[in-house]
């Protein structure tokens, strides 16, 4: 009964939604023009990076907060089993991981640097580095993290990029408002923020996996 009602409601809703989308006249505001007009003052030449780190940089600051708090929530609530002893993993896989890691780091660095003028940036770079860490973990070269015993250095790396971003945002209050970059220094400041974010994002994204991954291989 519930099933039939939900499916019927979903059909009606989907129909209305598609009808509304297809019927829509063109929009009165066009932000592409505003973005293009202000690109010269943004400090970067890739429009998406300009929106992400400058025009709507405040969204990004809060978004890193979401990521960080989800990681803390995960540590607070996640499985509390002790990490298993390192499994002697497949030698072939370890060799592969060892060979793959340096180029992956190079790719991450490239993506970070490329973000200023073409697709790429801190998120993609951080995600690629996090993937490398997950790969190292799966091949047994990097052990899982224990949420209950987190060394100070690791905590600092996890929040470092966010704190750097926050400090730059607040320092720029002197110019009048939060995150108001002076156009001449905008490029440099954005690169600084993105470099910090890349390291922290890599740690946080990998942490989402490494804090949870407790029972790989171990017999129950």
């Amino acid at each position, binding site marked *: 009964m519930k099933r039939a009602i939900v499916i019927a409601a979903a059909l009606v*809703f989907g129909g209305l939604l598609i009808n509304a989308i297809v019927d829509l006249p063109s929009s009165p505001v066009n932000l592409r023009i505003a973005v293009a007009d202000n690109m010269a003052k943004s400090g970067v030449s890739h429009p998406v990076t300009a929106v992400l780190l400058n025009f709507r940089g405040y969204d990004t600051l809060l978004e890193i907060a979401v990521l960080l708090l989800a990681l803390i929530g995960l540590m607070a609530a996640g499985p509390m089993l002790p990490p298993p002893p390192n499994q002697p993993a497949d030698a072939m896989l370890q060799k592969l991981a060892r060979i793959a890691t340096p180029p992956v780091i190079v790719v991450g660095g490239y993506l970070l640097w490329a973000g200023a003028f073409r697709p790429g940036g801190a*998120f993609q770079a951080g995600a690629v580095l996090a993937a490398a860490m997950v790969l190292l973990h799966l091949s047994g070269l990097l052990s899982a993290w224990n949420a209950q015993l987190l060394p100070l250095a690791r905590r600092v790396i996890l929040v470092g990029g966010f704190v750097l971003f926050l400090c730059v945002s607040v320092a720029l209050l002197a110019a009048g408002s939060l995150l108001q970059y002076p156009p001449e220094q905008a490029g440099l400041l954005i690169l600084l923020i993105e470099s910090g974010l890349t390291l922290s994002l890599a740690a946080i994204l990998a942490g989402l996996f490494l804090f949870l991954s407790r029972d790989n291989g171990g017999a129950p």
Partner: protein
Amino acid sequence: MSSELLFAVVGALIFTLGVAGTILVANLLRRILAFNLMGSGAFLVLVGLAQRGGESDPVPHAMVLTGIVVAVAATALALALLRKQHEVKDSEEELTEIDDG
């Protein structure tokens, strides 16, 4: 219909599927999948609809990047809670078994 509008319509369909799934599916891991479908559908509507004139628009691109990161944060939290729930269930069942014995 332009390709962009086509993707917006597909996004609407996927969102609807996701909502129905989140409500109807009992298994919690599946509900997490369904919730992710909702998000992807909304992202497709956002970009597809904004670009229905055929011109690329960087503002929704940045919003979707933000949205993808928020979605993975929510998914990881949900999975952590789900795994903890299983762990708690297991240990409590063991306890009752010990009590019974």
